[in-house]
């Protein structure tokens, strides 16, 4: 991972994560290879208490696997457990 070039992605925060970070959106420069790696990086920064394995990931408007790759310019959403309906 150290050999990867950095990427700039747009992160959108929702629900309890939005309240915890105090922001709806931010640009993040990261060397994370996957949404899951990026989440761990940001979870450490923001000191989230929510279990990482409860989070789903969306990239560019679509829910993706935690192991999907991240590209420069991607729009990334971290989805905490849902409660619609």
């Amino acid at each position: 991972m150290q050999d990867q070039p950095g990427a700039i992605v747009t992160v959108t925060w929702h629900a309890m994560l939005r309240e915890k970070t105090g922001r709806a959106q931010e640009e993040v420069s990261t060397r994370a290879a996957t949404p899951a790696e990026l989440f761990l990086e940001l979870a450490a920064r923001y000191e989230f208490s929510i279990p990482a394995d409860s989070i789903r990931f969306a990239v560019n408007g679509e829910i993706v696997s935690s192991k999907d790759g991240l590209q420069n310019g991607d729009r990334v959403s971290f989805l905490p457990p849902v409660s619609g309906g």
Partner: protein
Amino acid sequence: MGAFRLTTEPIEPFRLESELENTVTGALVTFAGRVRNRNEGRDVLHLFYEGANEIASTEFEHIETEARSRFEIEDIRCAHRIGKLELGEIAVWIGVSARHRGAAFDGCRYLIDELKQRLPIWKKEHYADGDSGWINHS
């Protein structure tokens, strides 16, 4: 326009239902989920729903495709409210038309079950005691 919409406006079942009545299909099953005054023993004053619109629409399309492959469905409409909701207001509405009632029932049930598990929509309850909290279905 797809079968799904997130809306800050009150949901009007009769308008959505009329969109399903253009074809003569025999059976129509609808589900409406409304804000209850109590949840897990606590008095609810009102709710706040937040949704990720683009992701929810895409994911609903996947759910709709699955439902159509499983059941002989004619047409589908679904709306989920976001923003502040008062007690008794409709949070989610689903209508499914089909030639036969079995497919209409099964399709409607499938859609609401999957929607609740998968769509990026979050509910925050505000309680009579001044407390509030995000709800977790799982």
